[in-house]
């Protein structure tokens, strides 16, 4: 890459959080970031988001947990993770000094649990932001996902925000009738930004055995297959809230990022594409730099919400 291209302005702000470029990695698709060190320069990325952390360790679902579907995949990992204590003592240690902002994704069964994780993380240095996964079922409310009811979404956001020292991003579930409604609810709860979409709930069946393919029966759909849905939702949400929107869903190239920015995203996350091309995130940053250079943009920010409707 020529030095002119290197010097283009790709920086964006997620509320108070400044990123050198808009390319982040999506939770659950980038491990704890260290796994990718052999393949790319982590410090070239805007930020990394680590695997979702719960209060207690979770073993996750039985196998099979993943199956490929046309242009995508279904997963029912079951939020396997080491729990917040081991995350802090083991994983976070590995992450200090990796010279890229680290966003910690959290999840819980109850509002109190989300709050407790936020409290534990508030004492930890080197966390750039917290991303709250509200696609999880609320065990106290009969298993309905936090992200599907506005008042629950507001409550979780509020609880985390009150106990965090860093910006709070709330990650929205697409499995709702009106995602703008939930986006506004988390904005009311104090979210500094929203990210979307999480996986779309889907299912695969093996007609020969007459069984569901995933042990969990249903799973989350991700990858290029969900990109049109994600773009539509980002577009709708960007018009409904004033906080920055982070676009997620089927992104694997700079072109995809540009589309999400046109729809109103300030930044993006790359998920499933990391599995196919472990260098996807870095190559996407390079592609964006080339685009800004070749099109003589003052900064990449000019693309945000610049959709031409005629």
């Amino acid at each position, binding site marked *: 890459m020529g030095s002119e291209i290197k010097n283009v302005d790709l920086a964006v702000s997620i509320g108070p959080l400044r990123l050198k470029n808009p390319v982040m990695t999506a939770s*659950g*698709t*980038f*491990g704890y970031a260290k*796994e*990718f060190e*052999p*393949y790319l320069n982590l410090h070239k990325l805007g930020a990394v988001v680590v*695997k979702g952390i719960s209060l207690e360790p979770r*073993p*996750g679902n*039985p*196998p*099979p*947990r*993943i*199956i*490929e579907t*046309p*242009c*995508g*995949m279904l*997963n029912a*990992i079951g939020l*396997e993770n080491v729990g917040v204590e081991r995350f802090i003592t083991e994983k976070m240690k590995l992450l200090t000094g990796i010279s890229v902002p680290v966003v910690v994704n959290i999840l819980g069964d109850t509002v109190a649990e989300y709050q407790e994780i936020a409290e534990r993380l508030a004492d930890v240095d080197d966390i750039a932001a917290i991303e709250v996964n509200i696609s999880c079922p609320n065990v106290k409310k009969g298993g309905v996902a936090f992200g599907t009811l506005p008042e629950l979404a507001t409550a979780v956001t509020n609880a985390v925000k009150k106990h965090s020292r860093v910006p709070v991003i709330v990650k929205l579930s697409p499995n709702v009738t009106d995602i703008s409604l939930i986006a506004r609810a988390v904005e009311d709860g104090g979210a500094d930004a929203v990210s979307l979409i999480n996986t779309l709930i889907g299912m695969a069946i093996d007609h020969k055995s007459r069984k569901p393919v995933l042990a969990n029966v249903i799973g989350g759909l991700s*990858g*290029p297959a969900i990109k049109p849905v994600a773009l539509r939702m980002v577009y709708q949400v960007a018009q409904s809230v004033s906080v920055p929107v982070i676009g997620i869903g089927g992104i694997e190239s700079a072109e995809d990022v540009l589309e999400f920015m046109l729809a109103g995203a300030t930044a993006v996350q790359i998920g*499933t594409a*990391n*599995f*196919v*091309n*472990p*260098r996807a995130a870095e190559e996407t940053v390079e592609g964006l730099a080339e685009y800004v250079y070749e099109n003589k943009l003052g900064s990449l920010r000019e693309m945000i919400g610049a959709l031409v409707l005629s």
Partner: protein
Amino acid sequence: MSQFQKKSYISRLEYLSPDIVRITLDSPEIARIAQPGQFVMVKTGNGKDPLLRRPFSISQVSNDRYFQILFKVVGRGTSLLAHCREGENLSVLGPLGSGFQVDCTGSHCLVGGGIGIAPLLFLAKQLSRICTGNPPLVVLGARTGEELEPLINDFKELGLSVHAATDDGSLGHHGFVIDVLKGLQLAADATTYVCGPHPMMLAVHLLCKAKNIACQVSMETHMACGMGACLGCIVPVEKGGYAHACFEGPVFDAEELLWEVK
């Protein structure tokens, strides 16, 4: 440290039978560091469908430069791979995972079923090269002689005698690999290395357990990434919970796994 090679040159593509294909890739970076039991993740097409890479064991390396994968055509991805041409490039990630643990002080027994024979050839070569004791016992099985014969040939070229078994009796013993194994004298200091269908690996594990012989198995699971990022590739373990086949395996000590005896 594993390598990511967007362009690994296909120097040879051979059909060993109508649905078993061997691809030789020119990739010194991978060939130099690969260990028996490790695998690579291969992109089978250029587009978004099939999306994910497919895992294949490294079945042989040569001259610090080439490595081979040996696969059976079972679906879209393997079918696309089978239609590649010599001179084309494949995107390959590897070598991945932790392979067979070899200790030359004991004796060795290799047990393979069907396409699970693939990683055992690399292991047989390694054992022949670094361990000076008795040559390993080799027991290989498949459904038919047509399927088994091409898989056995490379072992014979190493000078190893192979005990064969086929489901239809067209080559070697008429029946299962486990029957052949039961009839063989396994030394108390032997290690058994197994790769094949789940029921076969379970049977071998139970036999080894009864005889108090070490047993290493190479597990197949659904993998999305092959490098520890997706957490999809789990196998249940004896102590509770799961192990991840792509980085804690794919080769495991059979005793560590939780075998659901059905």
